[in-house]
């Protein structure tokens, strides 16, 4: 499929229809049966050019499988997936000219080569003239604050610096569509912020540039994404702007409760009117944070009553606006964040 001129931006960056992907896992013992795992089930998503689109889901939800299909690394079991108007199965080569991918925790490249040499190597896989490649690499090294490490061997870099180099590798080819699979995984606050700012600016700089981002960090999705799809067990549960997703539970009441010396959290289970609740422990401070999504304000009293039953004391109670995390908990039934801090 080819279009030209003004029509180009009208083609969806990604168009996925009734997409399914199953994996057959090998049996370890001869007598046991091979297992069929449904990684994606009837997925339908359309992402427009120029969008910064987020995929949110727990581990094993199917995010990476979807990205690998769209990157032409994996074939769908059934259904259709198109990238920039090209079919991932039949027109993979056309897609590859226009995309790139960066994964979090990636250890690509060769440790013996310097950062600059590694980046140059990957630029050559896209046929980039060396002069242009070096200009782009130097520019991006500067933007990413990695200029001082350009002549260091990759194997000497910290995780954060290596991830910055990976980000440069993905963006230096100037792809029309880039897949970022947990790009800030394991990075410190400053490095994450730098990468988020870079992604935001990159999309704004030129019309039509598209990003498909998967992340575990709700705040990241909320800050960056124009639209978000929540995916669990291979199914898309919701897909909309962060604001609209929050409206899904806007009529609900969200309260944050901080309690001390909690002994038994079961006191908070089964309270009528509680739609979901999550908790996290700050072990050093001895404080447990509870977050409740309630049908209405009337239930707050029942929760406060349950505090003494749990053997604890209230530190603070706060009524909050719903976040993307709350939407996720409501739809998926569990939190993405670690429960113990």
């Amino acid at each position, binding site marked *: 499929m080819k279009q030209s001129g003004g029509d180009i931006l009208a083609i969806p960056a990604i168009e996925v229809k009734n997409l399914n992907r199953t994996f057959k896992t090998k049996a370890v013992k001869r007598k046991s049966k091979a297992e069929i795992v449904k990684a994606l089930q009837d997925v339908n998503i359309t992402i427009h050019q120029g969008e910064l689109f987020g995929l949110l889901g727990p581990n094993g939800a199917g995010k990476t499988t979807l990205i690998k299909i769209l990157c032409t690394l994996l074939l769908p079991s059934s259904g259709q997936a198109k990238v920039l108007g090209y079919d991932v199965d039949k027109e993979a080569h056309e897609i590859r000219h226009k995309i790139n991918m960066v994964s979090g925790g990636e250890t690509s490249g060769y440790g013996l080569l310097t950062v600059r040499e590694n980046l140059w190597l990957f630029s*050559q*896989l896209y046929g980039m003239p060396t002069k242009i490649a070096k200009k782009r690499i130097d520019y991006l090294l500067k933007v990413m604050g990695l200029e001082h490490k350009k002549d260091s061997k990759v194997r000497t870099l910290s995780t954060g610096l290596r991830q910055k180099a990976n980000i440069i590798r993905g963006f230096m080819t*100037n792809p029309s569509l880039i897949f970022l699979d947990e790009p800030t995984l394991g990075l410190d606050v400053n490095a994450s912020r730098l990468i988020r700012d870079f992604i935001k600016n990159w999309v704004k700089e030129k019309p039509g540039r598209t990003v498909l981002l998967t992340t575990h960090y709700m705040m990241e999705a909320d800050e960056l994404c124009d639209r978000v799809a929540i995916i669990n067990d291979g199914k898309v549960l919701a897909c909309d702007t962060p604001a609209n997703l929050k409206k899904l539970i806007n009529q609900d009441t969200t309260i944050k409760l901080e309690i001390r010396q909690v002994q038994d959290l079961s006191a908070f289970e089964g309270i009528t009117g509680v739609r979901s609740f999550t908790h996290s422990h700050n072990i050093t401070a001895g404080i447990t944070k509870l977050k409740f999504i309630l049908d209405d304000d009337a239930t707050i009293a029942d929760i406060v009553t349950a505090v003494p039953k749990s053997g604890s004391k209230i530190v603070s109670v706060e009524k909050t606006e719903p976040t993307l995390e709350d939407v996720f908990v409501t739809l998926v039934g569990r939190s993405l964040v670690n429960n113990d801090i």
Partner: protein
Amino acid sequence: MIFDDYEKPSKLMMNLRAVFGRAYPRVIGVNREPSWLFFETFLPLLTVAAFVYFYKALDAPAQYIGYVIIGGAMTAYWMNVLWHMAAQMFWEKEIGNLELYMIAPISRMAILGGMALGGMFTCTVRAVSTILVGVLLFGVTLSLPNPLMFIGIFIFTMIALYGMGMMFASLYMLWGRQAVHMSSLMTEPIYLISGFWFPIKAFQNPEILGASKGLWLGTIASLIPITLGLDGMRQCLFPGTNDGFLPLWIELLALMALSVIFLILAKLSLDYMEKLGKQEGRLTMRWQ
């Protein structure tokens, strides 16, 4: 602007750039880790020396020392094909590079070609040093009355050999660890039947296999390009010794044919394995 589009190179130029790009780490690796040079050149010489002293102790004809030196030099290429070329895609997958190669808009043959080119460069360093030591330490005399034939034999040996390595690479890519054991399995038997330490015509000796069986074994061994390559180069460098398996021009033609066959097989198997890998999800699955 820094990200303005540039004139897209032709398909050929794209793939050539990819070849040189992928060859780069191999070439640079030798310079960055000088210890490799020591292990790659000095240690193999010990095996060569063992065979040289063995032949000297037996009062074998003088050209046998030369045969061992050439065999020792060519060992570098065979080991490179088995351990670095064939197994490389598997290791690229393990270290996380394969995905990036697979989403790049270039031929997979260009990636393998780059590995081959880089591998040939490093092996040539080792091969040349082995020959130099042979000449200086063991007094081997080389003569080259037909340099064009020698160059032809060498070049087509390399193309056919690395073509075979490319074919193995695609198999190893999907078979994973089990395939790596294939490399171990192929090391010593090929040393024997390809005649790394003696001319394969020796199999036809009545005290070994006899004319008929020796001819058959040599013919089967000739499917591995290094067999005819070794035999051809020995015939070129030690003319008039009458130890050649087949006439030189037949060996050259056979190597040409093997070059074409292995490159085609490599392309076909790579395409097939890529498709299979995408269907089964094994292209990106590590720890197989």
